[in-house]
């Protein structure tokens, strides 16, 4: 590969690397959203459970 071609590969490699890094960040953020959604789903299921022990109401 000529020296010029190496620079071209390096430049386009940087763009590809940037794109891949963005995909990784996106994946991490999506994983966090999925975790939170699962947690909320569990909380909602527990709320809907009639056998769940209720916290005593606060006295004034």
């Amino acid at each position, binding site marked *: 590969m*000529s*020296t*010029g*071609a190496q*620079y*071209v590969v*390096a*430049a*386009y490699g*940087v*763009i590809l690397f*940037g794109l891949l890094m*963005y995909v990784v960040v*996106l994946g991490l*953020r*999506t994983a966090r*959203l999925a975790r*939170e*959604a699962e947690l*909320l789903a569990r*909380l*909602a299921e527990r*709320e809907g459970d009639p056998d769940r022990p209720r*916290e005593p109401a606060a006295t004034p």
Partner: protein
Amino acid sequence: MTEARPGRRLAVTGAATAALTALAVYGVFFVAPEDADQGIIQKIFYFHVAIAIGSLLAFAVACVYGIRYLRSRDERHDEISATSVGIGIGFAVLVVITGSIWAKASWGTWWVWTDPRLVTFLVVLLLYAAYFVLRSSAEGERRMRYSAIYSIAAFASVPLSFYSVRVARSFVHPVVLTSSGANMPNTMLVWFAVSQLAVIGAFLTIMQVELLQRRADKALRRIKLRLEAAA
């Protein structure tokens, strides 16, 4: 931008961007002629300049939505403005790195501090990087208002960068897009145009992905608050 059928719109934009990118890469490397002066190194130009224009467009969008936020106080306008700044910064970082590689190949040095285009573009990048420092320093409505004002004020640096190379003609950075037209043959110009469309498509796709994520995040937060209140 995220109102009706956002998933479908994202799929269409993403598919069109992928197709345009593939077409641009094919055109740039297999169809466009090699530059007589620079040879294969000139191939960096197609995406380097397209991404540079894309970053300046992103900052323009941030400015427009900053103004719209100040007029309407609509939170969605603030979200679009902040997302645009983020994308613009990402693009600008790519421009600086690819430009530096091109400089090393073409001029034999990674950076020329006396060139106004390089320095002013770096100034634009640093100015917009400060946007997120400011944004994280305030909360609620104040945060959105400060961000909007800053995105409008920082946009003043964009024409400075764009015209710097045109004013200071004695420096090393070439001017390709002039007021009398593009300074290149049509066989190159057509593939530059395709590359530019691909970059604009990438901007729109990333924008939609980011807004969808913010929307999902906010919805989850609302449910959490509701459940905590019910408990």
